[in-house]
């Protein structure tokens, strides 16, 4: 079965410092990996995804993520955090062979707090 783990419930970082939000996954097959962000009282907003090709994926708002197949990880990163980045971040995975929505698996979420 597919699963996604986000080992940290909460990540605190000072404004201007680099941030990392961790994600590991377990699938049987080639994964498609996604990051979404959820601001308070808002829906999920798409940040970036890995489909194939370059392991470093760049997305919205200066975020990037690195796909590491050997470590089955897809950590979200940003070189310099902003207070406005404070939100709930979700990692999600789908298996490349699956063509139906029911196989979109989300992690439990990581709350990022950027302190001024």
């Amino acid at each position, binding site marked *: 079965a597919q699963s*996604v783990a986000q080992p940290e*419930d909460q990540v605190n970082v000072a404004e201007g410092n680099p941030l990392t939000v961790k994600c590991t996954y377990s699938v049987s097959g080639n994964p*498609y990996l*996604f990051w*979404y962000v959820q601001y308070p*009282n*808002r*829906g*999920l*907003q*798409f940040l970036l*995804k890995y*489909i194939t090709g370059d392991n470093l994926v760049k997305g919205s708002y200066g975020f990037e993520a690195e796909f590491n197949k050997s470590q089955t990880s897809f950590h979200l990163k940003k070189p310099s955090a902003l207070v406005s980045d404070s939100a709930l971040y*979700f990692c*999600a995975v*789908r*298996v*490349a*062979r*699956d*063509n*139906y*929505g*029911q*196989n*979109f*698996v*989300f*992690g*439990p*979420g990581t709350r990022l707090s950027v302190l001024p």
Partner: protein
Amino acid sequence: NAGVTQTPKFRILKIGQSMTLQCTQDMNHNYMYWYRQDPGMGLKLIYYSVGAGITDKGEVPNGYNVSRSTTEDFPLRLELAAPSQTSVYFCASSYTGQARETQYFGPGTRLLVL
């Protein structure tokens, strides 16, 4: 484009009441989805639709029903509300159902069943 819109934003139901959560998208997407988000958990798929007139169960369909009479609308029906259905409900859509496709989410409906 408004994207994916949901109504209401918040609702309190008594046990046994029924209600319909509305979802509309204006992106001409074929696929639409309903998820629920419980505290400390990721999203779980309730139902999905691959086009008008076609729906199918997701991971947690019990207690819910859906219909898809048009491409734009995908309402979720709760017939006999139970406290276990207290959650935040998100509707999403995508152009295709391919695994590589990004899903676009609405702002959510917060439901409290007392």
